[in-house]
């Protein structure tokens, strides 16, 4: 069955430290891959997406993600987090907007 797993429900990181949020998927073909962020009280916003080509993709707010086909992973990274990065992060995969499969989300907590 197709699925998306975000293994970490919560992650706590000190401000200025690096961040990696994990996303693993099970999908028949190579899907399109997305990361969205939901700040408190806000709707979701697209951080970045991967369709093809270079497996390291750059997004907004200093985030990047790397597609690893052999591991069926699309992990999100940021070299130095800011307090404003505290939010919930969702990984999604699919062949179209009509068929996205969403992970359960990872809540990022920033320690001062």
């Amino acid at each position, binding site marked *: 069955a197709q699925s*998306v797993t975000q293994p970490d*429900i919560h992650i706590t990181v000190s401000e200025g430290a690096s961040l990696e949020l994990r996303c693993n998927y099970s999908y028949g073909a190579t899907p*399109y891959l997305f990361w*969205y962020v939901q700040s408190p*009280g*806000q*709707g*979701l*916003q*697209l951080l970045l*997406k991967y*369709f093809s080509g270079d497996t390291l993709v750059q997004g907004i707010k200093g985030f990047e993600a790397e597609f690893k086909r052999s591991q069926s992973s699309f992990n999100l990274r940021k070299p130095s987090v800011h307090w404003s990065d505290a939010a919930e992060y*969702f990984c*999604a995969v699919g*062949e*179209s*907007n*009509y068929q*996205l499969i*969403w*992970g*359960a*989300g990872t809540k990022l907590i920033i320690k001062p």
Partner: protein
Amino acid sequence: DVKVTQSSRYLVKRTGEKVFLECVQDMDHENMFWYRQDPGLGLRLIYFSYDVKMKEKGDIPEGYSVSREKKERFSLILESASTNQTSMYLCASSTEEGRTGELFFGEGSRLTVL
């Protein structure tokens, strides 16, 4: 900037009531979506629409219906609300863009059914 506006941020309804959740987008997007967001379950697609008067079921359409009479407006209807429909409801829109364009989300409507 694209703006997706959901009419109510918070609603409290009683079991059996009819509930309307309204969503309006201002960027002439073809596609509109209704999602339900529950802790630990991520987002689940209820219905989507790719054109006026067109609608398609998503993963969890039971207990819901939708209406899209105008391109900019997509309504979610709970004919007879039940307690298990207590949730956060998110509306989104997107352009056609190969069907993989960015989704633009509203801020959500938190519905409590008593």
